[in-house]
């Protein structure tokens, strides 16, 4: 029997056939929670799957053709499309040559791709005479449709392809480094503080963006605008600032910042949350959180973190047998770049492309609603890309409500359920994960060490120990609840959470491995973090006193 996936073909789950073919399918809670809506599944998610397969083919990965994906009750499940032993043998020599440049000059490869992407986004906007968020209203329906098709079939494809060529290379490199680390030193790298000391001290684009926000906040204080921020709701700050010269000067500067860095939605893997450039109040909330800091927290830690890295590198290298030292050092350099890439790419890949999608699709939503095809603009997310395309011209001719209503109802039901963690034989999970090291992006198992008698065991950790009060935050819209110095407990964090690292004293997350956002950001900010605990948000309650031991990768609940 096929499980329906909001009428999307080829994503339906066949309990018998799929399990038999793949052994096991694992729920991708990192990207798929809350469950996605049809428009995103049909565009962004589709191109990510294409990207994975394109990456596997381009690098000629010996063990996998990429991921396959199914949806059950709106939640994505992933698995690897494995190669036969004969295919693996034939692909091996090609893979060796294709992965080599990433080991030798990771930065150069990434810089090339990065510039291609930025150029592509710029051209997509400028060639249509678009600059500001509201400029898209100037396009007629034909032009908007053309932009939509360009986005859905060209821009997003290109982004997905670059994204996953880089991701696969970086995970093979990082995975090998962790493996070599374990072989040489006997410790699981992801929870070894030395490993994180070696990997720390790199500044990703996202940190630069948050620093700009902090700087804007400091500037507002210098300009005597602090009270406006303090006394006004996020959404109204800009309006109020516009009543003074100093305020106008500040909002101009903020606007320039948004034009450059505001192309990002709060939720990366969907088009259903606003972008900063669309809703400038989103950035204001973050500025408020940061503006009281005299020094940007990352900068306060950076020198120490970088110095510690250099020292630890030396010490670690001296422990490597001489005949493997050259290889270890080369791999370490490449792995450091891979870890850094893991943070850096979100700005150029997920965030930017996601906000372009939001821009175009919600403009269609607005027009459909205005023309009476749907009730509200945001209902557009329950449509498939083909439906949007077919209903676009002539605008207003098709009643889209029957398509929206049923899927919207299903989605609302799906929001309430707890997804099955996997389908099939979980004993096969390890085998599937090993066939494709990139699958651990979305799936990671805790390293349980009973002798530590901890309440939670992580799959990865950033070093340091902290005791404090827990604050459980289930999604980014609740971030303003967070108080300075608290320990954040969350399902996971993504680039849109970046500001929290300047506020909290530690982190515990349900998902995530050594290359996950919370672990990488926490170690750059010098914060203890334990990731991949699976049940952190279930076991810990807001207000609990907890000890986060990032040196051991475990969490203790001290008092409730």
């Amino acid at each position, binding site marked *: 029997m096929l499980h329906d996936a909001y009428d999307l073909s080829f994503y339906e789950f066949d309990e018998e056939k799929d399990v038999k073919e793949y052994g096991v399918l694992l729920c991708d809670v990192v990207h798929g929670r809350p469950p996605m809506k049809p428009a995103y599944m049909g565009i962004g998610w589709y191109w990510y799957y294409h990207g994975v397969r394109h990456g596997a083919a381009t690098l000629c990965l010996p063990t996998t053709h990429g991921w396959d994906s199914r949806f059950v009750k709106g939640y994505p499940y992933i698995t690897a499309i494995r190669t036969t032993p004969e295919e693996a043998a034939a692909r091996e020599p090609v893979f060796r040559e294709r992965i080599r440049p990433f080991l030798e000059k990771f930065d150069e490869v990434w810089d090339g791709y990065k510039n291609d992407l930025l150029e592509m986004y710029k051209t997509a906007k400028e060639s249509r005479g678009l600059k500001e968020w509201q400029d898209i209203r100037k396009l007629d329906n034909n032009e908007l449709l053309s932009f939509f098709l360009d986005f859905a079939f060209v821009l997003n494809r290109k982004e997905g392809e670059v994204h996953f060529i880089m991701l696969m290379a970086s995970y093979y490199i990082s995975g090998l480094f962790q493996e070599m680390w374990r072989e040489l030193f006997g410790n699981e790298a992801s929870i070894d503080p030395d490993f994180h000391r070696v990997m720390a001290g790199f500044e990703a684009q996202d940190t630069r963006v948050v620093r700009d926000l902090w700087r804007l906040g400091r500037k507002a204080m210098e300009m005597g605008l602090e009270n406006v921020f303090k006394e006004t709701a996020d959404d109204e700050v800009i309006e109020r600032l516009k009543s003074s010269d100093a305020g106008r000067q500040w909002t101009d500067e903020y606007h320039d910042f948004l034009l450059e860095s505001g192309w990002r939605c709060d939720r990366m893997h969907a088009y259903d949350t606003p972008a900063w450039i669309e809703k400038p109040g989103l950035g204001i909330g973050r500025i408020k959180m940061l503006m009281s800091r005299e020094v940007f927290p990352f900068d306060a830690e950076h020198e120490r973190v970088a110095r510690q890295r250099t020292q630890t590198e030396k010490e670690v290298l001296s422990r490597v047998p001489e005949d493997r030292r050259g290889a270890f050092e080369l*791999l370490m350099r490449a792995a450091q770049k891979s870890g850094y890439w893991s943070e850096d790419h979100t700005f150029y890949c997920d965030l930017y492309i996601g906000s372009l999608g939001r821009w175009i699709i919600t403009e269609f939503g607005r027009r459909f609603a205005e023309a009476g095809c749907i009730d509200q603009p945001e209902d557009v997310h329950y449509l498939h890309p083909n439906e949007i395309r077919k209903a676009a011209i002539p605008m207003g001719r098709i009643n889209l409500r029957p398509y929206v209503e049923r899927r919207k109802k299903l989605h609302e039901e799906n929001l309430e359920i707890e997804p099955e963690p996997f389908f099939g034989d979980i004993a096969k999970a390890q085998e599937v994960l090993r066939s494709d*090291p990139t699958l651990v992006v979305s799936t990671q198992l805790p390293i349980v060490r009973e002798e530590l008698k901890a309440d939670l065991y992580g799959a990865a950790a950033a070093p340091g120990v902290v005791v404090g009060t827990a604050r459980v935050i289930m999604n980014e819209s609740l971030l303003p609840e967070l108080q300075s110095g608290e320990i954040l407990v969350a399902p996971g964090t993504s680039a849109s959470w970046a500001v929290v690292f300047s506020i909290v004293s530690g982190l515990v997350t349900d998902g995530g491995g050594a290359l996950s956002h919370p672990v990488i950001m926490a170690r750059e900010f010098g914060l203890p973090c334990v990731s991949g605990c699976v049940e952190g948000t279930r076991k810990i309650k807001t207000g609990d006193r907890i000890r986060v031991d990032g040196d051991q990768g475990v969490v203790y609940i001290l008092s409730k």
Partner: protein
Amino acid sequence: MSGRWLYPFEELGKEHNDMVGKKCANLGEMAKIGLPVPQGFALSLDAYRKFMGITGAAEEVVACIECRGNSLDCIAEVNDLSRAIRETVESRPMPREMDETIGSHYTKIGTCCGVADPPVSARSAGAVSYPGQYETHLNVKGKDDLIEKIKKVWGSTFNPTSLSFRHKKGLPLESDPIGVAVLRMVNARVAGIVFTADPNTGDTSRMMVEANWGLGESVVGGESMPDTYIVEKKTLKVLEKRLGTKSRIVVPSEKGTVEEETPEEMSSRLCLSDEEVAEIAKVGVRLEEHFGLPQDVEWAIDGDLSLPDAVVLLQTRPEVLAKKKEPVDQLLDMMMSRFVRL
């Protein structure tokens, strides 16, 4: 030790390389540090010289070469010369004193296991390795047979490949003294080689064990694809097992050995347990630590003994590693072995 030309292994160590040849010196060294090597003795390079001198073979070989050694660029000529010299060497009777000394040491090998004509092997042991395999004779029984086989080992220094190699390099044609190791035969259930570093990648964190049923000659010779095990050196954990075709095995016959087709039941399964692999690897680690270099070790599992005593060592030598690879190539190899060939 001047004047002597026969030494029980217990009296030898690696410092005696030039005296008795590498294989004998290393067998002695292994015995000295308490590792299990079969009982036996070494004939030194002097034994070779002594035999050649007393019997007059040395002079005749020189004469032989003077008369036919001018046109060694032609294969047929080399073959003719080789045949003539080997006949000369092997047809000389062993001088009485040597014959008796060898005989009494041979008998001793039998005494301790209560056998009159104990099966032994007579293996060549050069002080320097030259291309052109010198001979090894297995499952030799009885003193007379042993004497014949020792002479054949000596004579094998005049095999065509070695002659033309010495000719090309300007080395003396008339003599290449080597030692001979005489070892009690092990009742090998399984035998093979352990490389204490992965010979294909030069990865020193991993060891490779190759194994086949019966005597190790099927593995050393490389005709039959053995089972392969990759072992993590630090933990002795078996990381990979590859079932070889093991199409043929070498087993003792009445005298000597015979190569047979492997029964299906045996070729279709791995010939070592993880425990046995770990025990072999453990001895390999010990040898590498002792010699300070990766080793290439011949071992056998004695079917009459149980672990850990069953592992017996027949030879060790510095391992020839794959040419030291560039770091990036080492990493590519690692990527393949860790992620691809599971």
